[in-house]
């Protein structure tokens, strides 16, 4: 579905030299070298960055500075997946990696993780998904009021940026989209709705999302799409997966 080996696009903003190597310690990834002590691994003050916490016997939690680094590590791990790794779960500040502890030593994986490049993922990389939206959601007026914009302006600004799926959660196929217009940052509703219809396009905090199916929810609803966000009978059940790029297009 995507080509992980694609060269970063020429006109993508280049990472700064400082950003490229600052977080990758000059540690040997040679398995014969002394492995990192597991005791050191979860003490962020003395351990090399990023901090890596153990999660039981079969998982590690990598703690990163921001979402950009989360996306970078997730991108790196999905493009070049270490053997015996079962799940890679990006979240707001962390990436959880579960693995088969019988086939891979945690220390070795920690060393490998610390050698990964954490510079920002080039803008043009990742599948682009366009989502047609009819902007007639029940909270459009309220979002306009909260932001001091006109309803048309809210719609224009919501369609005006390219988003990226940072991570999924809440429900199968529910992607947290980042990269939206900061002026559209609004808090969640004080009282969540008992039922938000599937296909609802919504905003909350710094995120945008599309509800994959009917569910409770407290985000502010701007509109609705006809696209199926989650369908288990197709090879890729989720329309939006972490790392994808997203654009909203207004339809009337």
């Amino acid at each position, binding site marked *: 579905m995507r080509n992980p080996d694609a060269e970063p696009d020429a006109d993508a903003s280049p990472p700064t030299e400082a950003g490229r190597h600052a977080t990758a310690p000059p540690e040997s990834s040679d398995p014969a070298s002394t492995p990192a002590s*597991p005791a050191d691994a*979860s003490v962020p003050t003395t351990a090399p960055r990023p901090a890596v*916490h*153990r*999660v*039981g*016997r*079969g*998982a590690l*939690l990598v703690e990163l500075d921001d979402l950009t680094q989360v996306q970078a590590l997730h991108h790196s791990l999905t493009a070049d997946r270490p053997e015996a790794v*079962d*799940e*890679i*779960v*990006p*979240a*707001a*500040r*962390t*990436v*959880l990696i*579960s693995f088969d*502890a019988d086939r891979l030593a*945690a220390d070795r994986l920690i060393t490998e993780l610390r050698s990964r490049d954490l510079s920002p993922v080039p803008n043009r990389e990742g599948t682009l998904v366009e989502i047609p939206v009819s902007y007639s959601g029940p909270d459009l007026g309220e979002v306009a009021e909260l932001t001091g914009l006109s309803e048309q302006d809210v719609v224009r600004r919501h369609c005006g940026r390219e988003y990226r799926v940072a*991570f*999924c*959660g*809440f*429900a*199968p*196929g*529910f992607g947290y989209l980042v990269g939206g217009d900061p002026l559209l940052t609004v808090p969640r509703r004080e009282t969540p709705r008992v039922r938000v219809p599937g296909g609802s396009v919504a905003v909350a905090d710094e995120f945008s999302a599309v509800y994959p199916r009917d569910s409770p929810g407290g985000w502010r609803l701007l509109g609705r799409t006809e696209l199926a966000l989650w369908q*288990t009978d197709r090879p890729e*059940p*989720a329309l939006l*997966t*972490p790392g994808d790029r997203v654009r909203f297009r207004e339809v009337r």
Partner: protein
Amino acid sequence: MSVERRASMTVHAPGSLATVQDLGRPGYAALGVTRSGAADRPALRLANRLVGNAESCAAIEATFGGLRVEFDAPTLLALTGAPLPAALNGRAIGMHGPVWAEAGEELSLGLPALGLRTYLAVRGGIAVPPILGSRSTDLLSGLGPAPLVEGTRLPLGPRPEDWPVVSQAPVAPLPEIPVLRLHPGPRDDWFDPEALRLLCTSDYEVTEQSNRVGLRLAGPPLRRRVSRELPSEGMVRGAIQVPASGLPVLFHVDHPVTGGYPVIAVVDEDDLPAAAQVRPGGLLRFRLATGPG
């Protein structure tokens, strides 16, 4: 040449909760789909082996007995997990060994004396359509077949070539109070230093609000040292998450893939089957895992 008619079984009573389970659907956590699958996986595997199936075949997970099913064709079956009295058309049958059922016979499960989940495997496995590679019912995401109700008809798969090799499997009795080994972290440093000691020296009760998503525990609350909010992060089965109340929740097979409360420790994978057999009102104990990891 005639096509072999697909055998099936029909549910006459599901008991308090009966679902179809196999070894779950790994690999979709990044999309928000948890692994799910049998809560007591060794029991599912054993039940399958006893009827000559691959260990990954789908079977019925019966919660607190009470299940009644009728077979429409001669079928080899096996029961494992929480021990209970069982009968075929009123004739008592044993657990942990293959049993032959004739067409039209009804299997009925009584109530377990100890433990919570009993597995019924049938030769050929349950052949409902798989969703994302698994036939498991995930109660959190609503994936897989709905929980069984009276009248649910379950198709059985083609019989495997292998035949069972044992007639009775030795099984250790379930402990009265399981002791689960803990691996501290990833967020043990968010808690009062006393919290982990308290967790490892107190009895915790599995409350009525427990299910396949999580075991909600009652006991001494665990106090936090860091009070700021934790941005949601990935969660694993066996994680002991501590919400604001301080009362721990042990994440079970259908757990959410991310969570916003700190995890003080994670139960060793090998001890999770024992946790799956504790019924509401039962007790759990924890101790620190020793050795590597």
